[in-house]
C-alpha cells in the first residue's frame, strides 16, 4: 500500500546514522519512502510489538476464558493458557443464547445490508463523481453532514414507526434504516473520481449506451475493487451493530450481538459461557480479517483521507 516515491536520486539523508552507506544494493536501504520517512529502528518494532500485543491479548483471553469453567475464570490468579472445556462451553452458549437462530439472523441482516449498500452506494457514488447535475455540491455536503447525526436522536420515534408498520421486533426494522449509508456514498465517490476515466464513459456513450447500460458495463467493473472493500467494511459494521438492534429486536428474534447482550444480562450468567458466546460472535469476522486484512486496512486508509 505504501506508494514509494521515485526519490532514488540524491535524496538527502534525514537519518544521522548512515555515514558509510555503500554504493549498490545497500544504498537503497536508506531510500526515502512516501512522506520522506526512514526505516524503523529496533525501538519502532518494540513499540509496535507492545501495541500489537495489547490489541490481540483481549481476544486471546476471550478464548482462554471460554475454555475454562467459570470458577477457574474468576479465580486469582486468572488463567493465561487455554483449558479443556472449550467445546462444552461453546455448546452451552449455543443452546442458552439461541445462537443458532441469532447467527442466521445476523447473516441475513448483515448480508442484505451489504448487498444493498454496495448497489445503492455505487450508483450514488458514480453520480456524485462523474455526472453533472444541478445541486451536486450541496447534495454531497448534505450526504456527509448526515454522518454527524447519532442514531440516538431518532430511535424513540423509529421504534414507534416500526411497530406501526408491523416491523416491530422484526429483522426489517434493523435492515431498512441501514440500506444505504453516507460513508459508502462518499467512499465510492472518492474511488470512482480517480478510477473511472471520462474517456471510458464517453466511449460508451458514443457507442450508443444509455446511462443504466453504462453503469452496468463500465461503472460496475471499474468499481469492483472498491466494492469489495466497502462490502467488507459494511459487513463488519452491520455484524457488530449493537445499539439499535438491541432496542428493536427481542429475545426470540435476536442478532448475535443482541443475543450476546441478553446472555450476559441473564440472571447470574456463567462467565465462561458468556465468553464462549463472545468467541462465536467474533470468530467469523476475525477470519475475514485474517484473509482480507490488507484490503480492509487499505480501504480505511483510502476512505478517510479527507473529511
Amino acid at each position, binding site marked *: 500500500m505504501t506508494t514509494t516515491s521515485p526519490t532514488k536520486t540524491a535524496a538527502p539523508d534525514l537519518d544521522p546514522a548512515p555515514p558509510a552507506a555503500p554504493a549498490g544494493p545497500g544504498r537503497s536501504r536508506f531510500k526515502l519512502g512516501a512522506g520522506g520517512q526512514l526505516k524503523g529502528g529496533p525501538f519502532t518494532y518494540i513499540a509496535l510489538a507492545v501495541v500489537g500485543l495489547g490489541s490481540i491479548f*483481549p481476544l486471546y483471553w476471550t478464548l482462554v476464558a471460554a475454555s475454562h469453567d467459570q470458577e477457574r475464570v474468576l479465580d486469582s490468579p486468572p488463567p493465561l493458557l487455554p483449558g479443556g472445556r472449550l467445546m462444552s462451553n461453546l455448546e452451552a452458549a449455543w443452546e442458552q443464547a439461541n445462537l443458532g437462530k441469532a447467527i442466521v439472523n445476523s447473516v441475513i441482516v448483515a448480508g442484505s445490508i451489504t448487498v444493498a449498500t454496495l448497489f445503492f452506494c455505487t450508483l450514488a457514488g458514480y*453520480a456524485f463523481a462523474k455526472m453533472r447535475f444541478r445541486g451536486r455540491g450541496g447534495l454531497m455536503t448534505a450526504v456527509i453532514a448526515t454522518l454527524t447525526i447519532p442514531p440516538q436522536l431518532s430511535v424513540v420515534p423509529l*421504534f414507534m414507526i416500526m411497530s406501526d408498520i408491523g416491523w416491530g421486533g422484526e429483522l426489517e426494522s434493523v435492515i431498512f434504516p441501514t440500506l444505504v449509508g453516507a460513508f459508502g456514498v462518499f467512499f465510492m465517490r472518492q474511488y470512482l473520481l480517480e478510477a473511472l476515466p471520462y474517456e471510458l464513459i464517453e466511449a460508451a456513450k458514443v457507442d450508443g449506451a444509455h446511462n443504466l447500460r453504462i453503469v452496468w458495463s463500465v461503472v460496475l467493473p471499474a468499481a469492483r475493487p472498491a466494492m469489495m472493500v466497502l462490502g467488507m467494511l459494511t459487513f463488519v459494521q452491520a455484524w457488530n451493530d449493537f445499539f439499535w438492534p438491541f432496542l428493536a429486536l427481542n429475545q426470540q428474534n435476536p442478532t448475535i450481538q443482541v443475543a450476546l447482550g441478553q446472555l450476559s*444480562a441473564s440472571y447470574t450468567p456463567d462467565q465462561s459461557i458468556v465468553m464462549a458466546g463472545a468467541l462465536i460472535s*467474533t470468530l467469523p469476522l476475525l477470519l475475514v480479517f485474517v484473509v482480507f486484512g490488507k484490503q480492509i486496512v487499505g480501504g480505511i486508509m483510502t476512505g478517510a483521507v479527507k473529511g
Partner: protein
Amino acid sequence: MATTTPARGAHTPPTGGSGAAPHGRGAWRTRLWRFDDKVSPYAYIAPFFLVFGAFGLYPLLYTGWIALHRVEMTSLDQSEWVGWDNFAKILQDSEFWTSVSNTFVIGVISTVPQLLMALGLAHLLNYKLRASTFWRTVILTPYATSVATAALVFALVFRADGGLLNWVLSFFGVDGVDWGNGHWTSKIAISVIVIWRWTGYNALIYLAAMQAVPADLYEAASLDGANRWQQFLKVTIPSLRPTILFTIVISTIGSLQLFGEPLLLQGGTLGAVGGSEHQYETLSIYLFNYGWKLGHLGPAAAVAWAMLVLLLLIALINWIVGRYVRKNAV
C-alpha cells in the same frame, strides 16, 4: 492508494453524449436521451435520500413531537399533549445531569489519549517497516471486535477480585482496585474499552494523511537543520491538521453515543442504570433506561433533544477551536 489527487471532479467532463446522438433517428429519440441524462443522476442518488428521509430525518423531527407528549411503551398508539413537562422532568432530575457530566468526562478521557496514541502509532507505522501490512492489520483487529464482545471481555479483566488487571497490578503493590464501583475507576475502565477499540482505526487514518505529506517538505526542513522531533512538530502535525480535526469531530460524536460499554461493564440491572450510583451512566443509557426499562418514551425523546443540543454545542466549540487554530497558524 492513499494519495488523493485534488478534486478531479472539478474538471468538467467533455460534453458530447447527447449532442452526438444518432442523426436522422428523429427528435423523439434525442429527447429521450436528454431526459435520461438529466434524470439519471437524481435517480441514482435518490435511494440515499429516501432512506435517510424515512429513517433519519423524519424520526428526528418526530422526536420533537414525542418530547411534548405522554407516550408509554405499553400503549404506543396513544399520546397525550403535555407540553414542556417532559423537559422539565429530565432537567430537574439529578440523574440526567450526572449522565451529562459522565458522558462529557468519559468522552474527554477516552478521546484525548486515544487520538494522541493514534498519532504516535501512525508516526511509527510511517517508517519503512518489515511486514508493514502485518502491523497495520494487527493494530486494526480491535476494530473487527463488536462492542458487546469487547465490553464483556474487559468486564472480566476489570473485575475487582480475580480480575486480570488487579492481579497484574498486585505485582506493583497496587491492591484491590474496585474498577466497576469507583467514580473515576469505572469511567477509566470504560474509556479503556473505547481506546482499545478505536486507536488502531484512527492511527490508520493519520497514517494515510501522513503519507500524503510531500517528501520535499521534510527535505526542506532537514536542510534547515530540523531534527526528527522538530520535523514531526513543524511539518507532520500542521499538515495533518484537517485530518486531526476530522477525527476529533468523529470521536467526539462517537463518545456522545457510548452505550454498549457502560451497559455491559457490570451487566444486569447495574448496567441499565450505569452503576450503583450512576457513576458511569451515559446519556444513551439514561435514554434507554427511561424509554425501554421504565417505558416512558416522552422523557426519552426529550433526552434525545438534549443530545441534539449537546451535539450543536460540540459543533460550535469545534468551529471556534478550528478558527482559533487556523488564525494562530498563519
